[in-house]
């Protein structure tokens, strides 16, 4: 069976996607893109769960994926609300403009 090798490759894929998402979050200044990248990261995490679940033939991985999806949905809803709010206040979606947390 190719299972073991494949699972490894799936994990590698998940890692690549996660890193790409992270790069997106770090590199982009547009808050929309950062959020999109975060979705990618969540997806990657979900992928890892599913792969693990399928490797052992257990439903737990998919349950966790569901939790991740829920999290992602809720996060996106709130984050996008915040984005709207930010844009209303600053007329910009550039996160580098938001430095009020500076110590």
């Amino acid at each position, binding site marked *: 069976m190719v299972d073991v090798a494949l699972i490894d490759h799936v994990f590698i894929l998940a890692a690549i996607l996660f890193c790409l998402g992270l790069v997106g979050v770090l590199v982009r200044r547009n808050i929309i893109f950062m959020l999109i990248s975060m979705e990618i990261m969540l997806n990657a995490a979900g992928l890892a769960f599913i792969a693990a679940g399928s490797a052992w033939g257990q439903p737990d991985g998919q349950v966790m994926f569901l939790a991740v999806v829920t999290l992602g949905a809720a996060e996106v809803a709130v984050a996008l609300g915040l984005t709207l709010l930010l844009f209303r206040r600053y007329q910009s979606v550039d*996160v580098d403009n938001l430095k009020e947390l*500076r*110590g």
Partner: protein
Amino acid sequence: MLDWLWLVPGLPFLGFLILFAGQGKMPKRWTTLVGVGSVGLAALVTLLIAVEFYGTPEAALTYRQTLWTWMEAGSLKPGFSLYLDGLALSMLFVITGVGFLIHLYASGYMYEDEDFPRFFTYTNLFVAAMVMLVLADNLVLLFLGWEGVGLCSYLLIGFWYRDPENGRCARKAFIVTRIGDTAFAIGLFLLFRELGTLDIQDAMSAATATWPRDSGTATLIAVLLLGGAVGKSAQLPLQTWLPDAMAGPTPVSALIHAATMVTAGVYLIARTHVLFQLSTDAMQLVALVGVLTLLMSGFTALTQTDLKRILAYSTISQIGYMFLALGVGAWSSAIFHLMTHAFFKALLFLTAGSIILSVHHQQDIFKMGGLRKALPVPFATFLVGCLGLTALPPTSGFFSKEQILNAVWSSPTGGQLIWAGAVLGAFITAIYTFRMFFIVFFGEQQTEAHEHKGFKFHVPLIVLAVLAAVGGFFHLPLTSALPHAGHDHVPLGVEVTAIALPMVGVLLAYLLFYRQIPALRQLFETGPLKSLAAFFYSGWAMDWLYDRLLVKPFVALARWNSKDLVDQLPAVVSRGAALFHRLLSLSQNGQLRYYVATMALASLVVMAVAVYTG
């Protein structure tokens, strides 16, 4: 009558309280009545006591009166108790008698001053403290009087407070004497530790019982007490305050800085003479201090131009004689000289006050001149005073000084060298005294003079003049209180020299300052003598020395560290915290993406740790 002893300090103190409560708002007549009257009554009580005292047999010539127990701690139990013996009584005469005359004089002298009541408030307190000092039966109480007179001295030197210079002089007087007082206090501590008592009579008898002759402890205590005496009596090396103390009103100079307070050191040593007798070294030191001081201040007096400063240096010099007398064991001569000195020096100061007042507060003798005609009474009394100071027979000063000089010659702690110094001092005394006398009263009149006449001015002067003239015949009741020195037989030549040299001095002064012989004057106005004179004028540069050695470093240290370096210690902590905070806050740059990166990095590290160590 002896029961009334407490009234002697009590009356002046009551006067002080009344004047203090009056807040300077009482009419001047009342102020005078209280201020002068209280001291007068004290003098009267002293007189009554003396009458009874003289009536008792010689052996029982002491009286003790305990008013209340002052402190009580462990074995220390000093009381507010008075002790009267011949020595104390002699001092009481001087303090209340001369004090009363000076008060009387001051009621005229200070009449125009706006702070007239304050003056008597201070002086009454002074008399009370001085009497307390003299009557104290223990050293703690003596210390109370000792500090009390120091305070009053401070207050009175700085009496005219608007001039900061007066304040400086007053502070100097207080602080310099405090140095001596500290030594005195340490002496008390040591005495108490060694003997367990501070009662003077007990301590003295315990001292002879405990210590052998020339014991180190006794010497140390004696030297420490000498430190106190040196400070209070303006002797070497703490003499620098007295000339500056002349900033006070002239009656103050007469009362405190001539007749009474400055002689407290002499009294202290006489009071504790048992201790000194135990230690040849201490006696020797006292004698040396005396002779050095009298010479040094004599030379300084030669060059001064301020009338009061000349008198101040002469006071230091005369007290030097008293110390010398103490140092050679001529206890009663010292007290005798103390009394005669009180008479003629108070007389000189009061007369000087009259002169200064009549020439509109001019104190430079070279700006007076020829006052003989304008001021006949001061002229006469000043002459008497000068004769007393020069110790020409038959004035009172002659008797006392002669006793001292003779004692020095034959004493083991004295000797011929010290005797020579003392006689040289007498010679110089004659020169500077008559220099002052001739310059002030003879020659051309430089300023207009208006003599202040009246009862208050003339009576004290005349009474004091009489005392200064005949005081030498008084018999002080000292035989029971102080060991008798015995009649010193000295070679005739010695005695003649001692008497003749002052006369030569007067003659020299006459030639120099009355006849004004040019050649002699030339000698003093040129060459090395002139710079020597400048050196003398500065008081042998002692002020300069102390200024460099003590005052300037202390002030510089205080200025440098006025912000308290220790305060920087917590500041280091807080600065470190602030620095750390700034470092940390660098990471809080508000960049969302930076936060993400650090979070990622941190979780990476955590995971790596978990993976590679787990």
